[in-house]
Structures are given as structure tokens and as C-alpha cells.
């Protein structure tokens, strides 16, 4: 069986969920993470495609400005980050050390039927992240992402992991949570 984002999230959930604040991208990524391991420390995006990296950046900056040691992991995708490439430049210049951007690159717009993205063609997200000014950029294939994430969680960032996996997703149901509930339980756990 191919190694997809779902398999990746299952592999990294034990080191990530509960140990970091997670911004989960709209659509299947949020549904998959919710299905694998829900936590108040998971923020599920129900809309605003493209903004996972930016929401994670703003959260990480806020914590850094208060000397809060919590790590922020934004789970974004190739299709969605291509909608908001400017944020890589902002992260390159303003990204704090507690921020990890996990770009799950499956070369497809998964939630809309696996239409190919440009990363399935010539486009190199890791090269774009480096050129945007981000120094710690790691490219992984399949389960290599787990080791990279563990290392990034132990060292000062900002880090970008471009985790290459196969396209495709299991059939899951939408997250049965009100957006206000997602917001409030996340904010409560952030502030302790």
C-alpha cells in the first residue's frame, strides 16, 4: 500500500499530538488528524485554504513574544501553500525559532479529487522555501519525515519539512465540531 498523508500523520501523531500546538490544514488533513488523534492542542481549519502556514506563524510569534516555550507545527500542503507563497518570505524574515512548517507534498489537490499540483511537475517547494530565506529546510520521503520532525522539535527553527508522500486519502467524515468550540478549547490550552 502506498504511503500517503494519512500514513504519515499516523506515524508522527505520537511525537506531535499533545507535545506541540498544531494548525491542521483545511479538508482531509484536519479530518485525518482528528480521526487519528484528537486533542485540544489541535486547531482544525474548516475554511480559508492557504492560510495554515500563516496562522501557525502568527501563533508562534505570539508565543515567542511572551517567552512561551511551546512549539507550533503548521501542517500545510503543496496545493494550499502554492496559494500563499508570499508567506514563505515572511517566515524567512520573521519566522520565530519555535515554528515548524510541515509541508505535506503529495503533488495533488487531494480534497477536490487529486488533480495534480505544480509540484507534481517542475516546481520544488524546498527550493522555494530556501530562496525565501528559510535556512532549515528538510526534504523527506515517506516515513523519513518522523525522524526529521523529531530533530526539528529539539532544535531552534524556523524549520520547514517538505514531506513527500503519495496522493490519496481514506474516506472520513467531516469534523463534528463547531468552529467556536475549536477556537475556544484551543485558546484555553494555549494560555494554560
Amino acid at each position, binding site marked *: 500500500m502506498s504511503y500517503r498523508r494519512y500514513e504519515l500523520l499516523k506515524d508522527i501523531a505520537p511525537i506531535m499530538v499533545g507535545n506541540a500546538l498544531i494548525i491542521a490544514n483545511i479538508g482531509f488533513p484536519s479530518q485525518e488528524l482528528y480521526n487519528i488523534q484528537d486533542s485540544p492542542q489541535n486547531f482544525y481549519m474548516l*475554511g480559508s485554504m492557504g492560510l495554515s502556514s*500563516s*496562522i501557525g506563524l502568527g501563533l508562534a*510569534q505570539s508565543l515567542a513574544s511572551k517567552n*512561551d516555550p511551546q512549539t507550533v507545527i503548521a501542517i500545510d500542503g503543496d496545493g494550499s501553500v502554492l496559494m500563499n507563497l508570499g*508567506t514563505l518570505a515572511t517566515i524567512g524574515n520573521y519566522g520565530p525559532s519555535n515554528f515548524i512548517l510541515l509541508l505535506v507534498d503529495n503533488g495533488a489537490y487531494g480534497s477536490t479529487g487529486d488533480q495534480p499540483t505544480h509540484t507534481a511537475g517542475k516546481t520544488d517547494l524546498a527550493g522555494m522555501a530556501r530562496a525565501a530565506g528559510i535556512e532549515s529546510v528538510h526534504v523527506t520521503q515517506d516515513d523519513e519525515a518522523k525522524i526529521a520532525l523529531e530533530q526539528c522539535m529539539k532544535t531552534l527553527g524556523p524549520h520547514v519539512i517538505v514531506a513527500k508522500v503519495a496522493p490519496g486519502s481514506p474516506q472520513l467524515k467531516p469534523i463534528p465540531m463547531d*468552529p467556536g468550540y475549536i477556537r475556544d478549547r484551543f*485558546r484555553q490550552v494555549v494560555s494554560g
Partner: protein
Amino acid sequence: MTTVSQELLEELKRNGADYFASVPCKLLGELIDLLDQDQTIAYTPVAKEEEGLGVCAGAYLGGKTPVMVMQNTGLGTIVTSLFSLGLFYNLPITMIISHRGTPGEKIGTQVPMSNATKPILDVLGIPYFAFSNPADVQKVGRLVSHAQVAQKPVAALLDFDFWGKGGINNQ
């Protein structure tokens, strides 16, 4: 003697604002310089307004009181995210918007979006308040508190006269 930009920043901070994101506008130039120099706040110049909405949302999740500083032309690029992030999650984000295309404008292409700005905010259902007098700077600052009460994004539309630039050549 203080400037309207200095007074505005002080009033925004007095009402609790402690995280700012910005996309430039000539009317916002001095305010953006002040944000960049202010060590008492967190500040991020962003590449696009929608990104700014994202970092402000993240800042709110992190316990900050965010302000998005932008030009009204950027409103057209963030409508979807205002609906599906700012309004859907009821995020109190104060939008300080320079209103280009109002009297004092020298660039004709700014006028169509100027006319559409209030109707777009009406469609969004975002409370907005327009100011033309620099003496109203305290009222603008209070919108930070109002966003917390309203529990949604709120907007200030600040035209050329507010910035004291109704009569000089600007771009």
C-alpha cells in the same frame, strides 16, 4: 507636536492592541514606520492581506489582540477568508484600512474599489466605521475594544482627510 499616526498607534495600544500586521499604503507610511520601531508590540509586515488575516488569526489564538493595517484595495483579496476564517470562527481582528479613492486621491484607478469598499463590508456583515477627522483618533482606537465585544472582525475606514492629506499631492 504629535502626528495623527503617532496618536493612532497610542490609542490602538491603549485599547489593548499588541500584535500588528501590515501591507503598505502611502497613507499608512508613517504608521508602518512606527510599528517597525515599536519594541512594545509584535509586528509583522506581510506579503498580502490574506496572509495578514492568517497571522492575525494565529495571534488571537495565541492570546494576542491583533490589528491588520491595510489599504482598502486589499479588501477584495480577502473576502473568502474573512467569511471562512474571521467571521466563521468569530475572531476579533481590528482592520485599520486606509480608504484610497476618496477626495484627495490623484490616481483614478483607485476610485472603483473605493466605491465598492463599503458595499463589500456590508455583504460581509463586518461592522465598519468611517472617519474623516484626525480629531477622531480616540474613536478609531476604541474599535480594538469594540472588536472584543462584537467577537468578529471590525473595520475603520480612514480617508485622506483623516490622515491630513486631503489637499496635497499623494500617490
